[in-house]
């Protein structure tokens, strides 16, 4: 139908008043001369009118009157507590969000997380690209005296400390937002040396002195950093990324981690510096609901089985944005994880990349990342069904938007490969 002169492809934008003056004038000129396009325009306008008349049934005054009370009720203790003063600790909100109401007693969860954070801190020394802030305990013990779970932290500590005898990568106290463009992008932002040892010692003392890290408080303080960091990370994602040669890696890491240094890694580090929980929250709350549901399942499962393996939880929480670390450094130490955990651990890169890419999957500027992820997913056999579905969607898009026939054929081939 379109012979190159018709304006049918512009009529929508014309009706929507989204054309600039020149284009509008062009369309109008053409309309005066072309009956076909005039008919199209009329059809379009009437379609618009009909669409607008597809009214949403009003559920009635009673419904609206109850709507916000129902929301507030579901916020539940969150709201109550908040009105007592100050916002609800982010971590607690997160817990409530993930866990079905009444599923898990909060104190137990909090204690567990305090432990997680401690283990994270200690274990972190084995991860070369990790940064996390843990603040010394202050009032947590006072707030929740002698609750059983908090005891987890001290008992867990020596074990982890013993395990991580590797050269330490120091947690870095860095409350400021990461500068988006670092002059030395490849330099790890981790400080080593004397400062490291001091920090580590301090942490050891803190734990030994029976004060678990005040997880809630820490998270709360970090909260304002979350968004800027994520944004920074995403901006970095958009930049064209230089190809980096794979660094020599332990064979295990190589097996699990096809990523080598991925384009995204550097930007993800920025997120990691906000703390693993934040990187996770950022991904989960951004509306990547699949991820959040997986989180809920995982956490509930662990809690139910009463087998809250802190180290696994730590690794899992870090996983969405800590691509490399988990695969290499952490897997060796995982012994008792559930099969679900193993399944998740098997594809950390994909889950993470997917969580970041999925909402942006149709943006051309992310094409290189989408291509990269799609390639890996096709090659990888151990992806979850959910990721496989995603791979299909990514590939379909890549086929549809391929710039030339050869590229299209290439992606079509990958798509076919996935189907097999």
């Amino acid at each position, binding site marked *: 139908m379109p012979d190159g002169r018709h304006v049918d492809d512009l009529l*929508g934008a014309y009706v929507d008043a989204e054309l600039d003056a020149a284009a509008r004038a062009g369309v109008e000129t053409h309309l005066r001369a072309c009956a076909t396009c005039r008919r199209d325009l009329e059809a379009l306008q009437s379609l618009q009118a009909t669409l*607008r008349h597809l009214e949403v049934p009003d559920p009635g005054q009673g419904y609206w009157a109850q709507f916000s009370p129902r929301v507030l009720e579901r916020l539940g203790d969150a709201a109550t507590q908040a009105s007592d003063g100050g916002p609800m600790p982010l971590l607690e909100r997160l817990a409530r969000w993930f866990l079905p109401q009444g599923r898990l007693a909060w104190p137990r969860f909090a204690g567990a997380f305090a432990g997680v954070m401690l283990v994270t801190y200690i274990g972190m020394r084995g991860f070369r690209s990790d940064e996390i802030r843990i603040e010394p305990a202050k009032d947590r013990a006072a707030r929740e005296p002698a609750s059983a779970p908090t005891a987890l932290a001290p008992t867990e500590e020596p074990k982890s400390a013993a395990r991580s005898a590797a050269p330490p990568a120091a947690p870095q106290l860095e409350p400021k937002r990461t500068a988006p463009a670092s002059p030395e992008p490849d330099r790890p932002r981790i400080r080593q040396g004397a400062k490291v040892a001091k920090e580590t010692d301090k942490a050891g003392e803190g734990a030994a002195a029976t004060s678990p890290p005040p997880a809630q408080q820490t998270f709360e303080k970090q909260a304002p950093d979350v968004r800027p960091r994520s944004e920074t990370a995403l901006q970095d994602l958009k930049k064209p990324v230089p190809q980096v040669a794979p660094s020599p890696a332990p064979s295990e890491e190589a097996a699990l981690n096809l990523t080598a240094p991925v384009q995204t890694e550097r930007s993800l580090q920025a997120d990691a510096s906000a703390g693993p929980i934040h990187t996770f929250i950022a991904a989960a709350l951004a509306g990547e609901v699949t991820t959040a549901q997986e989180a809920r399942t995982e956490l509930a499962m662990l809690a139910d089985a009463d087998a809250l393996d802190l180290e696994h939880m730590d690794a899992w929480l870090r996983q969405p944005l800590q691509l490399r670390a988990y695969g290499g450094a952490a897997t060796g130490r995982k012994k008792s994880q559930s099969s679900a955990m193993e399944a998740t651990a098997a594809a950390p890169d994909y889950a993470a990349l997917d969580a970041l890419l999925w909402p942006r999957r*149709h943006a051309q500027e992310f094409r290189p990342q989408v291509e990269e992820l799609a390639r890996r997913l096709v090659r990888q056999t151990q992806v979850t069904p959910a990721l496989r579905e995603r791979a299909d969607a990514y590939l379909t898009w890549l086929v549809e938007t391929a710039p030339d026939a050869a590229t299209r054929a290439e992606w079509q081939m990958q798509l076919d490969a996935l189907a097999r």
Partner: protein
Amino acid sequence: MHSADGLDSEEIGKLVRAARAGKSREFGQLVEAFQRPIYALAYRMLRNHADADDVAQETFIRAWTAIERYDPSYSFLGWLRTIATRLALNMIEKRRRRRTEGGETFDLASEQHATTAPGPDTAVEGSEMHRALEAALARLPDDYRLPLLLRTNDELSYAEIAKTLEIPVGTVMSRLHRARTLLRAELESHGLGASPRRGHA
């Protein structure tokens, strides 16, 4: 009672700040201000009251949970819409999975008829045209349907749609075009061309 139009951006900003500080009462006011457009968006996407209610409620729960992540330099309603859109998409996906797992063929059109349970104040006229249009809409792939709904019913500009769906503006335009073309073809195949001479007001 507040309505979306009843609050100017300054008041919204004030309420958002209060909500960020954990004040649930102020958050409740925001809920009241935006419940209708959010419910409407969810309803259009999901086409039944129960699901729309779920998504609308959940949208505000999420908003509360993630309020720190809201960037006040953007529209609050836009942010809510983004959350609601994703939740609704997720629900559509879940439905689809249930359906396919259950061995049934996925037929949105029949779902459409099953789920159009009008509320008490329903103003929907049950004309053939409307039913056909709704069915056709339901069959549109989400990628096409969403921009169309956001444009036509939520009256977002192309730029706003691009932001909400995180796609380039050019893509918004091409998808809208495609959506309308598909809809018309669908209607015409039922002998219901969306022409000015269709017999329904």
